[in-house]
């Protein structure tokens, strides 16, 4: 019997379409549900007032700020490490068992459950190094969580730079390090920026790694005290800091405020919106950086 190739092709395409639709529908349903239930609870007052632990009408001002501050600190700590590790892996690492070991270690680190990272952070940072529940403990825990992803995206971005560019640098008598810094890195920066923004989205929504490191309380801080060493300053990295994601988790597990449900759906919507902004802006900023670096628009690959 002759098999009709056209029919089979149609069937295959149909199957693929169906599978893709399932993924897209799940996403649309989740986003839609969170936004529809939460958007109506968001108001300027909600975003700018402090949270309440007993009465209704609390906001998320401090949690929102804590999330952003923690994100910034985490990127400040993890980006230099990832840059170094990524450059080493892409440019200097020889193809031997040590490199394989390092790469495996990074893979394992990236698949560690975040609650394990959180408890590890609790034992080592909070207890052993006596950092207590603090933004710093949280930022270090998030760094552990973030390093593998960011290293990987730095490594990939650098490896995507054509080999010919390196040869051009070397053939002009530039050293390998000068070639990497002056020729390869500028071309890799757009990819690195995209990687940073995408991993920022993940950090921003992380809760489990923070419950036992950054803590679950949001003390009232002063937003006019710019001295990071002052205990009441909003910049003090040694204070405990409940983030938005932790706040949502807490409201849903042990929230006693009468409007816990409303606050949590509003906070969830804010969280989702911020993460969506991160994701959507990553491509834009990547392209923008490419234009800045090369003076031309990014060509489609392939």
């Amino acid at each position: 019997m002759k098999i009709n190739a056209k029919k089979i092709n149609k069937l295959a395409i149909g199957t693929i379409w169906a599978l893709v639709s399932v993924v897209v529908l799940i996403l649309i349903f989740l986003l839609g549900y969170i936004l529809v239930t939460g958007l109506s609870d968001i108001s300027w007052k909600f975003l700018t007032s402090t949270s309440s632990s007993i009465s209704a009408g609390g906001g998320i001002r401090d949690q929102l700020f804590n999330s952003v501050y923690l994100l910034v600190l985490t990127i400040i700590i993890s980006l230099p490490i990832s840059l170094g590790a990524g450059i080493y892996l892409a440019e200097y690492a020889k193809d031997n068992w040590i490199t394989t070991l390092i790469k495996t270690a990074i893979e394992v680190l990236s698949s560690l459950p975040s609650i394990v990272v959180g408890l590890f952070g609790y034992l080592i940072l909070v207890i052993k190094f006596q950092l207590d529940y603090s933004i710093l403990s949280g930022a270090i825990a998030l760094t552990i969580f973030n390093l593998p992803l960011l290293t990987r995206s730095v490594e990939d971005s650098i490896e995507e730079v054509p080999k010919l560019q390196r040869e051009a640098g070397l053939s002009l008598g530039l050293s390998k390090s000068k070639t990497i810094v002056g020729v390869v890195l500028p071309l890799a920066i757009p990819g690195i920026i995209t990687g940073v923004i995408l991993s920022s989205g993940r950090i921003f929504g992380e809760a489990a790694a923070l419950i036992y490191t950054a803590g679950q309380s949001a003390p009232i801080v002063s937003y006019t005290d710019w001295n990071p060493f002052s205990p009441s300053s909003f910049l003090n990295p040694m204070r405990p800091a409940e983030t938005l994601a932790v706040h949502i988790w807490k409201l849903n597990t042990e929230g006693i405020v009468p409007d816990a449900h409303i606050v949590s759906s509003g906070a969830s919507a804010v969280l989702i919106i911020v993460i969506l902004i991160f994701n959507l802006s990553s491509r834009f900023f990547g392209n923008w950086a490419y234009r800045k670096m090369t003076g031309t628009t990014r060509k489609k690959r392939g």
Partner: protein
Amino acid sequence: MTQPDYNLDQHQIIVPPGEIALETKDVNVFYGKKQATFDTSLAFPRFKISALIGASGSGKSTFLRCLNRMNDGVATVTGAIMYRDVNINQKKLNVYVLRKNIGMVFQHPNPFAKTIRENIQFALKKHGVKDQTVLDQRVEQSLRAAALWDEVKDKLDTSALELSGGQAQRLCIARSIAMQPDILLLDEPASALDPISTAKIEETLLELKQKYTIIIVTHNMQQAARVSDYTAFFHLGHVMEYKKTADIFTRPQVKATEDYISGNFG
């Protein structure tokens, strides 16, 4: 078409008269255990164009890359390469200074993703040239030498990535010239270009040989015949014949050379 078995030990290699810019003695290249070139001993005369021809995989590009140590970390190179009475194939040599003196242009144009001006100035700055007038001069001189100045003088600050393939390749030649090298190595510089761009590159090379020693790898025999003064024919990693280009193309003495240039294989 199957290749006949030639006697690889039967070869004819001359030493050109006049000043020799670069000379190799028994250069062998190994990729791991696999040997790519065998006892290559060639002398390249100063201010002449020497062409390396041969089929794909004959070892001509591999050999060329030894001459400015671009095989470092890629392949093992034994033997001596004499440049200004120094064997440059030794570990303690400063390859960065060497590569300033022996520049290279590659098969595919590879301008930096920077402006045209910066493409030429970038390496100079890294080598410590700070004087802006000197930098500007070098930009103009080298672009003129590469016959690109008239086409780009009004857009020096636009991205080099917007140049056509032929322009980009001439920019790469200009970039090498700006380092004020002695010798230019070109690895099939026109093979990715259209005939008009190729002709421009060839014209440029004929101009450049007044000031530079040029060694060019090509698998375009007409190109070798048009531009070069001396030609070496590579076969399976062996140099079979090396002499004046006119002689090699009109009166090849080795059977392999004769078969190759008459199009019987390759």
